[in-house]
């Protein structure tokens, strides 16, 4: 089980950050290698992501569910999927919460995630998967910060 506990600073007001995080299209644009697929009637949607484990790239397909509570600015993302060869499966759940931050002014986003990888790939990547997931989280944070920084600098 890979656990992620990250706190990310976003240089924007909480409502602006919440609006972005509530929009799957915008969130996916902040995840390197991710793409959005079809939306389903139950509110879930398909997504794809290419993950780089060492020099090898592995393409995963996932079904993602999103539950949002605008009153508390809290969201819950659940996803499960498998790679395009079908030999590796993953199951992930993540919660996020947006809160105001005074110094520097903007918002804090608290992420908590648990990712479980099973099947063939798990023996290839072992502890390295932990590092890969953490790097993806860092990349996501960076892109998120850059997303909000852009209007300010333009």
């Amino acid at each position: 089980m890979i656990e992620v506990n990250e706190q990310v600073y976003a240089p924007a007001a909480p409502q602006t950050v919440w609006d972005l995080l509530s929009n799957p299209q915008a969130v996916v644009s902040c995840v390197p290698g991710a793409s959005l697929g079809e939306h389903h009637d139950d509110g879930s949607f398909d997504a794809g992501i290419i993950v780089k484990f060492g020099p090898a790239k592995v393409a995963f397909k996932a079904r993602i569910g999103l539950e949002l509570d605008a009153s508390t600015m809290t969201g819950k993302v659940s996803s499960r999927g498998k790679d395009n060869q079908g030999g590796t499966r993953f199951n992930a759940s993540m919660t996020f919460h947006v809160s105001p931050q005074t110094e520097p002014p903007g918002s804090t986003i608290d992420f908590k995630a648990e990712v479980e990888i099973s099947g063939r790939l798990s023996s290839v990547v072992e502890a390295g998967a932990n590092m890969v997931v953490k790097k993806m989280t860092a990349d996501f944070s960076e892109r998120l910060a850059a997303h909000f920084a852009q209007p300010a600098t333009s």
Partner: protein
Amino acid sequence: MKVYQRMARAFRAEGITHTFGIMGDGNMYWLNEMIKLGATDVEVRHEGAGLGMADGWARATRQPACATATCGPGVSQLATALITASRASSPVVAFCGEHPTNDDEYNQRMEQAPFAAACETQFVRVATADAADDAVRKAFYLAKINSKPVMLSAPMDVQQQEFEDDDDYVTSATLMPSRQVRPDPDVLERAADMLCKAKHPIILVGRGAMWAGAGDAIKKLAERSGALIITTLMAKTWLSEDDFHLGVSGTYATKTAMELCEESDCVVAVGASLNRYTTEHGYLYANAKFIHIDAKQHVMIHGVRAADIYMQADARIGTEALEGVLAKRSFKQTGYRTGEVRERLGNAWEDRHEYKIEAGTADPREVVLALDEVVPENISLYTGSGHTAGFSNILFRRRRDVVMPGHFYGCIGQMMPAAIGAVMARGNKPAMLVDGEASTMMHLNEFDTMVRHKVPLLMVVQNNEMLGAEYYKLDAHKMNAATSMIPSPDLGAVARGYGGRGVMAKSVEDVRKAAAEWVAKPGPMLIDVRISHDVVSLPYRRIHYGLDE
């Protein structure tokens, strides 16, 4: 004539010149007769090491080799070595004593048949005196036809019975089929269709292709189809004279090789089992279709899928036939053999990751590069297992007569015996073994065997005084890695104590000097190289730290 005497004659008739093992009351009469008949008895210090030496002999010659152990406790020492020999496809016949059939309370009794089965070893019992010839013949037949070890179990009382027949022994060679598997013409055409459509083909070659003498055919097919060449670990450096050779596929691949594999759209695998380590569970060739040429009826790729086209054929005949069909179609393309790829391969083996090296230690990567330079290419190379294999199995690049990696059973300790056996099989031609210290110390008492038999093996021990594989796993999991650290004595001094030569090296220059001295005067020698704790091998960087170089 006693049964044990007849059996010794049969072993000699089967071509056995050396026996590897320890004498005990279950095998000593037979062994005594073997010596009387001119065989060399290599008395070892552990039965498992003796079987490991026979395994090395078989790997080097592709001919049956002979190990021996006494009944019960002698046999139970063979477990790890038997499984290793089985995984290495080594035709080893182990003459094992068995407790007397008329004494169920015998102190050294043991159920040897189920033990052999658990060790992936075929089992033949000499049930009666009359069946002695049949049992030996069957044992050698099974060893050769299945390329697996066989335990020939001879009850002590049966060995002492009279063998009445004085006809000449008929060898197992009379039982062996003499046929080569030729490809099905339809399958051949379909394989050619697929290969002609490929823009980025790769030919992946394994030991089966080496053994079949398919080298020239593979190079011709690569030229014609525009394919790069890559090997399994067990065929390391084979055909590396080709400009478009990627090295080893899988765990020990360079970053450049992995990227090129990933971009490949067609793999022609020849004489390779395509296990999970070679293909990284298939992820290494995620975009490729597979054409698989092998003499076996069928082979599953990494145990879960079949090739898109499976062509049952002798590796050489199948490859020649495929190249022939392409030639008939006047097909020839540049494919993957471009200037751009050649340029990418130019610095593919450079390990650019920088580490701070502790004082009094050497960088294990530089140790390998120095050895590859100082030790000439007519010296064979054997590489061990564990973390330090990650340096040897990538960075040794020189083409040598024999390059033999281990890893068949994922265990440590098996390569020293295998190297000793292989060197003896090759008429005591000098060779070099590079392994870690935990692996070396498991059978270091066999240095005594090396000295007694004047085996000219240079043992280079990459010694970081820890169980490296465990150390880095624990470290990556943020656990107490220090629990895997074990201080080791001066192994050079131990080697000198056994009557050989030995030194401790604390720098690459020390290694160069000692290796050059050995090259000038080969003999049993050990270099205990103290290496940095901090340098992580490339495979471990990927697996445990999520890095790509």
